[in-house]
Protein backbone atom coordinates (compact mmCIF):
# COMPACT_ATOMS: atom_id res chain seq x y z
CA UNK A 1 0.00 0.00 0.00
CA UNK A 2 1.23 3.40 -0.93
CA UNK A 3 1.69 5.90 1.83
CA UNK A 4 -1.08 8.42 1.21
CA UNK A 5 0.89 11.24 2.78
CA UNK A 6 3.75 10.90 0.31
CA UNK A 7 4.40 14.24 -1.37
CA UNK A 8 4.42 13.94 -5.14
CA UNK A 9 4.75 17.57 -6.11
CA UNK A 10 6.38 20.17 -3.94
CA UNK A 11 6.32 23.76 -5.11
CA UNK A 12 8.18 26.13 -2.84
CA UNK A 13 8.13 29.94 -3.08
CA UNK A 14 8.01 29.93 -6.85
CA UNK A 15 8.14 33.32 -8.54
CA UNK A 16 8.05 33.66 -12.30
CA UNK A 17 8.50 36.92 -14.18
CA UNK A 18 7.56 37.49 -17.78
CA UNK A 19 8.51 40.68 -19.63
CA UNK A 20 9.00 42.43 -16.29
CA UNK A 21 5.60 41.37 -14.95
CA UNK A 22 5.14 39.00 -12.06
CA UNK A 23 3.12 36.09 -13.41
CA UNK A 24 3.48 33.99 -10.28
CA UNK A 25 4.31 35.49 -6.90
CA UNK A 26 5.94 33.18 -4.33
CA UNK A 27 3.53 30.31 -4.79
CA UNK A 28 3.90 27.28 -2.56
CA UNK A 29 1.82 24.19 -3.07
CA UNK A 30 2.12 20.51 -2.34
CA UNK A 31 0.25 17.66 -3.93
CA UNK A 32 0.19 14.28 -2.20
CA UNK A 33 0.14 10.96 -3.98
CA UNK A 34 -3.36 9.92 -4.98
CA UNK A 35 -4.77 13.39 -4.47
CA UNK A 36 -7.00 15.16 -6.98
CA UNK A 37 -6.09 18.85 -7.03
CA UNK A 38 -7.85 21.50 -9.08
CA UNK A 39 -6.00 24.71 -9.81
CA UNK A 40 -8.60 27.38 -10.50
CA UNK A 41 -8.37 31.06 -11.19
CA UNK A 42 -9.36 33.61 -13.80
CA UNK A 43 -7.56 33.96 -17.12
CA UNK A 44 -4.14 35.48 -16.63
CA UNK A 45 -3.90 34.19 -13.07
CA UNK A 46 -0.79 32.14 -13.92
CA UNK A 47 -2.39 28.67 -13.83
CA UNK A 48 -0.82 27.44 -17.04
CA UNK A 49 2.50 29.00 -16.11
CA UNK A 50 2.43 27.14 -12.81
CA UNK A 51 1.68 23.87 -14.58
CA UNK A 52 4.38 24.43 -17.17
CA UNK A 53 6.87 25.15 -14.40
CA UNK A 54 5.69 22.04 -12.55
CA UNK A 55 6.47 19.99 -15.66
CA UNK A 56 9.87 21.59 -16.13
CA UNK A 57 8.93 23.47 -19.30
CA UNK A 58 9.65 26.86 -17.69
CA UNK A 59 12.40 27.61 -15.21
CA UNK A 60 11.19 29.63 -12.21
CA UNK A 61 13.01 32.89 -11.50
CA UNK A 62 12.94 32.06 -7.81
CA UNK A 63 11.88 29.07 -5.80
CA UNK A 64 12.13 25.30 -6.10
CA UNK A 65 9.98 22.60 -7.61
CA UNK A 66 10.37 18.91 -6.83
CA UNK A 67 8.36 16.19 -8.54
CA UNK A 68 8.61 12.57 -7.35
CA UNK A 69 11.05 13.93 -4.79
CA UNK A 70 13.52 15.09 -7.47
CA UNK A 71 14.18 18.68 -8.64
CA UNK A 72 12.07 18.98 -11.79
CA UNK A 73 15.04 19.77 -14.05
CA UNK A 74 16.70 16.55 -12.97
CA UNK A 75 13.78 14.25 -13.69
CA UNK A 76 14.92 11.68 -16.20
CA UNK A 77 13.33 8.28 -16.42
CA UNK A 78 10.69 9.43 -13.90
CA UNK A 79 9.33 11.64 -16.70
CA UNK A 80 7.63 8.60 -18.20
CA UNK A 81 5.47 8.46 -15.06
CA UNK A 82 3.91 11.80 -16.01
CA UNK A 83 0.90 12.10 -18.29
CA UNK A 84 0.23 15.57 -19.65
CA UNK A 85 -2.82 16.81 -21.51
CA UNK A 86 -1.89 20.21 -22.94
CA UNK A 87 -4.25 22.87 -24.22
CA UNK A 88 -4.99 21.68 -27.70
CA UNK A 89 -5.18 24.82 -29.77
CA UNK A 90 -1.42 24.72 -30.31
CA UNK A 91 -1.74 21.39 -32.10
CA UNK A 92 -1.86 21.19 -35.90
CA UNK A 93 -4.96 19.06 -36.50
CA UNK A 94 -3.90 18.51 -40.12
CA UNK A 95 -0.65 16.83 -39.11
CA UNK A 96 -0.42 13.56 -41.08
CA UNK A 97 -0.75 11.05 -38.26
CA UNK A 98 -3.55 8.76 -37.16
CA UNK A 99 -5.19 8.82 -33.74
CA UNK A 100 -3.40 5.58 -32.87
CA UNK A 101 0.01 7.02 -33.77
CA UNK A 102 -0.65 10.06 -31.60
CA UNK A 103 -1.54 7.90 -28.63
CA UNK A 104 1.52 5.73 -29.24
CA UNK A 105 3.65 8.90 -28.93
CA UNK A 106 2.77 8.86 -25.24
CA UNK A 107 5.09 5.84 -24.98
CA UNK A 108 8.07 7.33 -26.85
CA UNK A 109 9.74 8.83 -23.81
CA UNK A 110 9.61 5.48 -22.04
CA UNK A 111 10.81 3.59 -25.14
CA UNK A 112 13.85 5.84 -25.56
CA UNK A 113 15.33 7.80 -28.45
CA UNK A 114 16.22 5.74 -31.52
CA UNK A 115 14.42 2.62 -30.27
CA UNK A 116 11.47 1.05 -31.99
CA UNK A 117 8.00 0.57 -30.55
CA UNK A 118 7.19 -2.95 -29.41
CA UNK A 119 4.00 -4.95 -29.13
CA UNK A 120 3.43 -3.99 -25.48
CA UNK A 121 3.68 -0.30 -26.45
CA UNK A 122 1.04 -0.80 -29.13
CA UNK A 123 -1.11 -2.76 -26.69
CA UNK A 124 -0.83 0.02 -24.10
CA UNK A 125 -1.80 2.61 -26.69
CA UNK A 126 -4.79 0.56 -27.77
CA UNK A 127 -5.84 -0.02 -24.16
CA UNK A 128 -5.67 3.74 -23.53
CA UNK A 129 -7.86 4.38 -26.56
CA UNK A 130 -10.39 1.83 -25.35
CA UNK A 131 -10.33 3.36 -21.89
CA UNK A 132 -11.44 6.75 -23.20
CA UNK A 133 -13.95 5.01 -25.46
CA UNK A 134 -12.59 5.83 -28.91
CA UNK A 135 -10.94 2.56 -29.93
CA UNK A 136 -13.03 2.58 -33.11
CA UNK A 137 -11.50 5.90 -34.22
CA UNK A 138 -7.89 4.72 -34.12
CA UNK A 139 -7.22 5.10 -37.85
CA UNK A 140 -8.81 8.54 -38.20
CA UNK A 141 -6.86 11.77 -38.47
CA UNK A 142 -7.44 14.54 -35.92
CA UNK A 143 -9.08 16.73 -38.55
CA UNK A 144 -11.89 14.17 -38.88
CA UNK A 145 -12.81 14.24 -35.19
CA UNK A 146 -15.05 16.45 -33.09
CA UNK A 147 -13.63 18.67 -30.35
CA UNK A 148 -14.61 16.20 -27.63
CA UNK A 149 -13.08 13.27 -29.52
CA UNK A 150 -9.85 15.18 -30.06
CA UNK A 151 -9.63 15.92 -26.38
CA UNK A 152 -10.02 12.21 -25.64
CA UNK A 153 -7.16 11.41 -28.03
CA UNK A 154 -4.84 13.59 -25.97
CA UNK A 155 -6.10 12.10 -22.72
CA UNK A 156 -5.49 8.63 -24.18
CA UNK A 157 -1.97 9.70 -25.13
CA UNK A 158 -1.34 10.78 -21.55
CA UNK A 159 -2.77 7.47 -20.27
CA UNK A 160 -0.75 5.32 -22.69
CA UNK A 161 2.15 5.75 -20.30
CA UNK A 162 0.06 4.44 -17.40
CA UNK A 163 1.05 7.61 -15.54
CA UNK A 164 1.25 8.02 -11.80
CA UNK A 165 0.72 11.74 -12.23
CA UNK A 166 -1.78 13.15 -14.69
CA UNK A 167 -1.74 16.88 -15.45
CA UNK A 168 -4.54 18.42 -17.50
CA UNK A 169 -4.46 22.03 -18.66
CA UNK A 170 -7.95 23.39 -19.38
CA UNK A 171 -9.24 20.10 -20.80
CA UNK A 172 -12.83 21.32 -21.09
CA UNK A 173 -12.16 24.27 -23.39
CA UNK A 174 -14.14 23.87 -26.60
CA UNK A 175 -15.78 20.66 -25.41
CA UNK A 176 -19.53 20.17 -25.00
CA UNK A 177 -21.35 19.35 -21.77
CA UNK A 178 -21.66 15.60 -22.43
CA UNK A 179 -17.97 15.26 -23.22
CA UNK A 180 -17.11 17.27 -20.13
CA UNK A 181 -19.26 14.92 -18.03
CA UNK A 182 -17.51 11.90 -19.58
CA UNK A 183 -14.15 13.44 -18.79
CA UNK A 184 -15.01 13.89 -15.13
CA UNK A 185 -16.27 10.35 -14.73
CA UNK A 186 -13.05 9.13 -16.36
CA UNK A 187 -10.99 11.23 -13.96
CA UNK A 188 -12.94 9.78 -11.05
CA UNK A 189 -12.11 6.25 -12.25
CA UNK A 190 -8.45 7.17 -12.56
CA UNK A 191 -8.43 8.65 -9.08
CA UNK A 192 -9.82 5.40 -7.71
CA UNK A 193 -6.97 3.60 -9.48
CA UNK A 194 -4.56 5.73 -7.47
CA UNK A 195 -3.51 8.24 -10.13
CA UNK A 196 -2.56 11.66 -8.79
CA UNK A 197 -4.42 14.29 -10.79
CA UNK A 198 -3.75 18.00 -11.26
CA UNK A 199 -6.48 19.74 -13.20
CA UNK A 200 -6.26 23.34 -14.33
CA UNK A 201 -9.43 25.22 -15.10
CA UNK A 202 -10.74 28.74 -15.32
CA UNK A 203 -14.24 27.30 -15.14
CA UNK A 204 -15.18 27.06 -11.48
CA UNK A 205 -18.36 25.18 -12.35
CA UNK A 206 -16.29 22.07 -12.98
CA UNK A 207 -15.16 21.74 -9.43
CA UNK A 208 -16.85 18.60 -8.29
CA UNK A 209 -17.20 16.78 -5.00
CA UNK A 210 -14.55 14.18 -5.77
CA UNK A 211 -11.85 16.82 -5.96
CA UNK A 212 -9.73 16.69 -2.81
CA UNK A 213 -8.22 20.14 -2.80
CA UNK A 214 -8.60 23.36 -4.68
CA UNK A 215 -5.75 25.78 -5.22
CA UNK A 216 -7.18 29.21 -5.93
CA UNK A 217 -4.59 31.08 -7.91
CA UNK A 218 -4.48 34.69 -8.86
CA UNK A 219 -0.77 35.41 -9.41
CA UNK A 220 -0.27 34.45 -5.79
CA UNK A 221 -1.98 31.55 -4.08
CA UNK A 222 -5.24 32.94 -2.69
CA UNK A 223 -6.28 29.75 -0.93
CA UNK A 224 -5.47 26.08 -0.84
CA UNK A 225 -8.42 24.29 0.66
CA UNK A 226 -11.01 21.55 0.50
CA UNK A 227 -13.97 22.29 -1.80
CA UNK A 228 -16.53 22.38 1.02
CA UNK A 229 -14.61 24.78 3.25
CA UNK A 230 -15.99 28.26 3.60
CA UNK A 231 -12.57 29.78 3.10
CA UNK A 232 -12.58 28.19 -0.33
CA UNK A 233 -15.87 29.63 -1.53
CA UNK A 234 -14.88 33.01 -0.10
CA UNK A 235 -11.63 32.88 -2.01
CA UNK A 236 -13.38 31.98 -5.23
CA UNK A 237 -15.95 34.75 -4.76
CA UNK A 238 -13.21 37.22 -4.14
CA UNK A 239 -11.23 36.15 -7.18
CA UNK A 240 -14.08 35.97 -9.61
CA UNK A 241 -15.91 38.91 -8.11
CA UNK A 242 -13.24 41.20 -9.44
CA UNK A 243 -13.45 39.50 -12.82
CA UNK A 244 -17.14 39.65 -13.54
CA UNK A 245 -16.60 38.82 -17.18
CA UNK A 246 -15.90 35.23 -16.29
CA UNK A 247 -19.40 34.63 -15.10
CA UNK A 248 -20.29 33.77 -18.68
CA UNK A 249 -18.35 30.55 -18.34
CA UNK A 250 -20.12 29.23 -15.30
CA UNK A 251 -23.58 29.34 -13.85
CA UNK A 252 -22.77 30.66 -10.43
CA UNK A 253 -19.88 32.46 -8.83
CA UNK A 254 -19.42 29.78 -6.19
CA UNK A 255 -18.44 26.15 -6.22
CA UNK A 256 -20.85 23.81 -7.85
CA UNK A 257 -20.83 20.51 -6.04
CA UNK A 258 -22.06 17.94 -8.51
CA UNK A 259 -24.23 15.13 -7.26
CA UNK A 260 -22.70 11.81 -8.05
CA UNK A 261 -24.50 8.71 -6.84
CA UNK A 262 -21.20 7.05 -5.96
CA UNK A 263 -19.38 10.12 -4.72
Amino acid at each position, binding site marked *: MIDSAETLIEIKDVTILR*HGLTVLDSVSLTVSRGEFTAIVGPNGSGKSTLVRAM*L*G*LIKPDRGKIRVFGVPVDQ*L*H*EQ*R*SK*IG*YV*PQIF*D*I*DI*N*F*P*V*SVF*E*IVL*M*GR*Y*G*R*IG*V*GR*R*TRQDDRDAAMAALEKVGIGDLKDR*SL*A*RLSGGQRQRVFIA*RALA*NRPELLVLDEPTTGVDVTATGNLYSLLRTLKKEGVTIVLVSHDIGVVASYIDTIACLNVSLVAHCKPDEEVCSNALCEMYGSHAAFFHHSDTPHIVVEDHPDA
Partner: protein
Amino acid sequence: MLESFAFAYMQRATVAGVLVGALCAIIGVYVVLKGLAFIGAGIAHASFGGVAIGVWLGINPIWSAIVFCILTAWGIGITSRSSHVKEDTAVGVFFASTMALGILLIGLKQGYQVDLFSYLFGSILAVTIQDVWTTVVITAVVLATVLILYKDLMFITFDSEMAEVTGVPAGRLYFLLITMMALTVVMSIKVVGIVLVSALIVTPAAAAYQLTEKFRNMMIIAVAFGIGSCVVGLILSDILGIASGATIVLLSTAIFFLCAAISPRRRRTKEL
Protein backbone atom coordinates in the same frame (compact mmCIF):
# COMPACT_ATOMS: atom_id res chain seq x y z
CA MET B 1 17.17 13.79 -77.07
CA LEU B 2 19.05 12.27 -74.15
CA GLU B 3 22.44 12.00 -75.82
CA SER B 4 23.76 14.53 -73.27
CA PHE B 5 23.69 11.72 -70.73
CA ALA B 6 26.69 10.20 -72.49
CA PHE B 7 28.73 13.02 -71.00
CA ALA B 8 30.21 12.61 -67.56
CA TYR B 9 29.09 16.08 -66.47
CA MET B 10 25.47 15.16 -67.20
CA GLN B 11 25.79 11.90 -65.29
CA ARG B 12 27.24 13.73 -62.31
CA ALA B 13 24.47 16.30 -62.56
CA THR B 14 21.85 13.56 -62.56
CA VAL B 15 23.30 11.80 -59.54
CA ALA B 16 23.52 15.13 -57.70
CA GLY B 17 19.93 15.92 -58.71
CA VAL B 18 18.59 12.60 -57.42
CA LEU B 19 20.44 12.90 -54.11
CA VAL B 20 19.64 16.56 -53.51
CA GLY B 21 16.02 16.09 -54.57
CA ALA B 22 15.63 13.30 -52.03
CA LEU B 23 17.54 15.11 -49.29
CA CYS B 24 15.56 18.34 -49.63
CA ALA B 25 12.27 16.46 -49.68
CA ILE B 26 13.04 14.52 -46.49
CA ILE B 27 14.09 17.62 -44.56
CA GLY B 28 11.23 19.49 -46.22
CA VAL B 29 8.67 17.25 -44.52
CA TYR B 30 9.86 18.47 -41.11
CA VAL B 31 10.20 22.03 -42.35
CA VAL B 32 6.62 22.10 -43.65
CA LEU B 33 5.07 20.35 -40.67
CA LYS B 34 7.02 22.22 -38.01
CA GLY B 35 6.73 25.57 -39.78
CA LEU B 36 10.48 26.08 -40.23
CA ALA B 37 10.33 27.47 -43.77
CA PHE B 38 11.61 30.88 -42.75
CA ILE B 39 14.53 29.35 -40.84
CA GLY B 40 15.31 27.42 -44.04
CA ALA B 41 15.34 30.63 -46.05
CA GLY B 42 17.49 32.25 -43.37
CA ILE B 43 20.05 29.42 -43.45
CA ALA B 44 20.07 29.52 -47.25
CA HIS B 45 20.91 33.22 -47.26
CA ALA B 46 23.52 32.64 -44.58
CA SER B 47 25.19 30.18 -46.92
CA PHE B 48 26.09 33.16 -49.09
CA GLY B 49 28.22 34.43 -46.23
CA GLY B 50 29.66 30.93 -45.83
CA VAL B 51 30.56 30.67 -49.50
CA ALA B 52 32.11 34.16 -49.43
CA ILE B 53 34.31 33.20 -46.47
CA GLY B 54 35.57 30.21 -48.45
CA VAL B 55 36.28 32.35 -51.51
CA TRP B 56 38.00 34.95 -49.34
CA LEU B 57 40.16 32.36 -47.57
CA GLY B 58 40.82 30.50 -50.79
CA ILE B 59 39.37 27.19 -49.58
CA ASN B 60 36.54 25.08 -51.03
CA PRO B 61 33.43 27.21 -50.35
CA ILE B 62 31.37 24.09 -49.64
CA TRP B 63 33.31 23.44 -46.43
CA SER B 64 33.19 27.00 -45.20
CA ALA B 65 29.49 27.12 -46.06
CA ILE B 66 28.80 23.93 -44.08
CA VAL B 67 30.50 25.29 -40.97
CA PHE B 68 29.00 28.73 -41.33
CA CYS B 69 25.45 27.48 -42.00
CA ILE B 70 25.51 25.12 -39.04
CA LEU B 71 26.72 27.92 -36.77
CA THR B 72 24.04 30.25 -38.14
CA ALA B 73 21.34 27.61 -37.64
CA TRP B 74 22.46 27.15 -34.04
CA GLY B 75 22.62 30.90 -33.60
CA ILE B 76 19.01 31.23 -34.76
CA GLY B 77 17.98 28.30 -32.55
CA ILE B 78 19.73 29.59 -29.43
CA THR B 79 18.56 33.18 -29.90
CA SER B 80 14.93 32.24 -30.39
CA ARG B 81 14.89 29.65 -27.60
CA SER B 82 16.75 31.39 -24.84
CA SER B 83 15.93 35.06 -25.08
CA HIS B 84 12.84 37.14 -25.59
CA VAL B 85 13.28 37.20 -29.35
CA LYS B 86 10.76 35.49 -31.60
CA GLU B 87 12.00 32.88 -34.00
CA ASP B 88 11.20 34.88 -37.13
CA THR B 89 12.89 37.96 -35.66
CA ALA B 90 15.98 35.87 -34.90
CA VAL B 91 15.99 34.63 -38.49
CA GLY B 92 15.57 38.19 -39.76
CA VAL B 93 18.60 39.36 -37.82
CA PHE B 94 20.87 36.53 -39.00
CA PHE B 95 19.44 36.51 -42.53
CA ALA B 96 20.54 40.06 -43.28
CA SER B 97 23.79 40.12 -41.33
CA THR B 98 25.24 36.92 -42.82
CA MET B 99 24.30 38.09 -46.32
CA ALA B 100 25.93 41.46 -45.62
CA LEU B 101 29.08 39.72 -44.40
CA GLY B 102 29.18 37.78 -47.66
CA ILE B 103 28.80 40.91 -49.77
CA LEU B 104 31.53 42.64 -47.79
CA LEU B 105 34.00 39.76 -48.15
CA ILE B 106 33.28 39.31 -51.86
CA GLY B 107 33.88 43.05 -52.32
CA LEU B 108 37.32 42.64 -50.77
CA LYS B 109 38.17 39.85 -53.19
CA GLN B 110 37.81 41.06 -56.78
CA GLY B 111 37.27 38.83 -59.79
CA TYR B 112 34.95 36.15 -58.39
CA GLN B 113 31.66 37.54 -59.62
CA VAL B 114 31.10 34.88 -62.28
CA ASP B 115 31.75 32.06 -59.85
CA LEU B 116 29.45 33.72 -57.35
CA PHE B 117 26.61 33.79 -59.85
CA SER B 118 26.69 30.00 -60.01
CA TYR B 119 26.36 29.80 -56.21
CA LEU B 120 23.42 32.18 -56.20
CA PHE B 121 21.46 30.54 -59.00
CA GLY B 122 22.96 27.05 -59.18
CA SER B 123 25.03 25.37 -61.84
CA ILE B 124 24.18 21.72 -61.72
CA LEU B 125 26.26 21.01 -64.81
CA ALA B 126 29.36 22.24 -62.99
CA VAL B 127 29.00 19.60 -60.24
CA THR B 128 32.39 17.93 -59.69
CA ILE B 129 33.03 14.34 -58.74
CA GLN B 130 34.10 15.62 -55.32
CA ASP B 131 30.74 17.39 -54.95
CA VAL B 132 28.96 14.16 -55.82
CA TRP B 133 30.84 12.21 -53.15
CA THR B 134 30.26 14.88 -50.54
CA THR B 135 26.56 14.79 -51.38
CA VAL B 136 26.50 10.96 -51.19
CA VAL B 137 28.02 11.02 -47.71
CA ILE B 138 25.78 13.80 -46.38
CA THR B 139 22.65 12.19 -47.85
CA ALA B 140 23.56 8.83 -46.32
CA VAL B 141 24.14 10.44 -42.91
CA VAL B 142 20.86 12.39 -43.00
CA LEU B 143 18.91 9.38 -44.26
CA ALA B 144 20.33 7.12 -41.55
CA THR B 145 19.59 9.74 -38.87
CA VAL B 146 16.01 10.18 -40.06
CA LEU B 147 15.46 6.40 -40.16
CA ILE B 148 16.93 5.79 -36.70
CA LEU B 149 15.20 8.77 -35.08
CA TYR B 150 12.04 8.47 -37.18
CA LYS B 151 9.55 8.29 -34.31
CA ASP B 152 11.35 10.85 -32.16
CA LEU B 153 11.67 13.47 -34.90
CA MET B 154 8.01 12.94 -35.76
CA PHE B 155 7.08 13.45 -32.10
CA ILE B 156 8.98 16.72 -31.66
CA THR B 157 7.59 17.96 -34.96
CA PHE B 158 4.04 17.21 -33.88
CA ASP B 159 4.19 18.22 -30.23
CA SER B 160 7.57 19.29 -28.92
CA GLU B 161 6.25 20.20 -25.48
CA MET B 162 4.69 16.82 -24.79
CA ALA B 163 7.88 15.17 -26.03
CA GLU B 164 9.87 17.15 -23.50
CA VAL B 165 7.46 16.41 -20.66
CA THR B 166 7.63 12.65 -21.23
CA GLY B 167 11.43 12.61 -21.38
CA VAL B 168 12.23 12.85 -25.10
CA PRO B 169 15.16 15.32 -25.48
CA ALA B 170 13.17 17.70 -27.67
CA GLY B 171 15.74 20.50 -27.50
CA ARG B 172 18.65 18.38 -28.68
CA LEU B 173 16.56 16.80 -31.43
CA TYR B 174 15.52 20.28 -32.60
CA PHE B 175 19.15 21.31 -32.92
CA LEU B 176 19.91 18.08 -34.76
CA LEU B 177 17.07 18.86 -37.14
CA ILE B 178 18.27 22.38 -37.93
CA THR B 179 21.82 21.04 -38.32
CA MET B 180 20.57 18.60 -40.94
CA MET B 181 18.71 21.50 -42.53
CA ALA B 182 21.95 23.47 -42.77
CA LEU B 183 23.73 20.49 -44.39
CA THR B 184 20.87 20.06 -46.85
CA VAL B 185 20.97 23.72 -47.82
CA VAL B 186 24.71 23.60 -48.56
CA MET B 187 24.42 20.37 -50.57
CA SER B 188 21.69 21.98 -52.68
CA ILE B 189 23.59 25.15 -53.55
CA LYS B 190 25.21 23.73 -56.70
CA VAL B 191 21.94 22.23 -57.90
CA VAL B 192 19.47 25.10 -57.53
CA GLY B 193 21.48 27.93 -55.97
CA ILE B 194 21.25 29.88 -52.73
CA VAL B 195 18.30 31.95 -53.87
CA LEU B 196 16.14 28.97 -54.86
CA VAL B 197 17.10 26.29 -52.36
CA SER B 198 14.36 27.00 -49.85
CA ALA B 199 11.81 26.35 -52.60
CA LEU B 200 13.27 22.93 -53.28
CA ILE B 201 13.01 22.11 -49.57
CA VAL B 202 9.47 23.37 -49.02
CA THR B 203 7.65 22.68 -52.28
CA PRO B 204 7.86 18.87 -52.76
CA ALA B 205 6.92 18.30 -49.10
CA ALA B 206 4.08 20.83 -49.33
CA ALA B 207 2.82 19.04 -52.46
CA ALA B 208 2.99 15.64 -50.73
CA TYR B 209 1.13 17.10 -47.73
CA GLN B 210 -1.82 17.74 -50.04
CA LEU B 211 -2.13 14.08 -50.94
CA THR B 212 -1.88 12.05 -47.75
CA GLU B 213 -2.75 11.89 -44.08
CA LYS B 214 0.10 9.53 -43.24
CA PHE B 215 3.52 10.77 -42.18
CA ARG B 216 5.45 7.97 -43.88
CA ASN B 217 3.53 8.38 -47.13
CA MET B 218 4.13 12.11 -47.03
CA MET B 219 7.86 11.44 -46.85
CA ILE B 220 7.84 8.88 -49.67
CA ILE B 221 5.71 11.07 -51.97
CA ALA B 222 7.84 14.14 -51.17
CA VAL B 223 11.01 12.23 -52.08
CA ALA B 224 9.45 11.08 -55.36
CA PHE B 225 8.44 14.67 -56.20
CA GLY B 226 11.86 16.01 -55.19
CA ILE B 227 13.78 13.52 -57.29
CA GLY B 228 11.30 13.86 -60.16
CA SER B 229 11.57 17.66 -60.17
CA CYS B 230 15.36 17.56 -60.18
CA VAL B 231 15.78 14.91 -62.88
CA VAL B 232 13.00 16.06 -65.19
CA GLY B 233 13.98 19.69 -64.62
CA LEU B 234 17.55 18.87 -65.53
CA ILE B 235 16.50 17.11 -68.75
CA LEU B 236 14.07 19.89 -69.71
CA SER B 237 16.64 22.59 -69.11
CA ASP B 238 19.15 20.65 -71.21
CA ILE B 239 16.74 20.20 -74.11
CA LEU B 240 15.41 23.75 -74.03
CA GLY B 241 18.72 25.36 -73.17
CA ILE B 242 17.30 27.17 -70.13
CA ALA B 243 18.54 27.69 -66.55
CA SER B 244 18.47 24.33 -64.74
CA GLY B 245 17.92 25.55 -61.14
CA ALA B 246 14.97 27.71 -62.12
CA THR B 247 13.47 24.92 -64.23
CA ILE B 248 13.68 22.47 -61.33
CA VAL B 249 12.02 24.89 -58.92
CA LEU B 250 9.25 25.88 -61.35
CA LEU B 251 8.57 22.23 -62.10
CA SER B 252 8.17 21.42 -58.40
CA THR B 253 5.90 24.46 -58.05
CA ALA B 254 3.74 23.15 -60.91
CA ILE B 255 3.52 19.78 -59.10
CA PHE B 256 2.49 21.59 -55.93
CA PHE B 257 -0.38 23.44 -57.61
CA LEU B 258 -1.52 20.27 -59.33
CA CYS B 259 -1.57 18.43 -55.98
CA ALA B 260 -3.35 21.32 -54.26
CA ALA B 261 -6.01 21.23 -56.98
CA ILE B 262 -6.72 17.51 -56.58
CA SER B 263 -6.10 17.38 -52.83
CA PRO B 264 -8.49 15.27 -50.75
CA ARG B 265 -7.82 17.77 -47.95
CA ARG B 266 -9.50 20.42 -50.05
CA ARG B 267 -12.44 18.19 -50.81
CA ARG B 268 -12.80 17.44 -47.12
CA THR B 269 -12.89 21.14 -46.26
CA LYS B 270 -15.75 21.52 -48.70
CA GLU B 271 -17.63 18.61 -47.17
CA LEU B 272 -17.48 20.03 -43.67
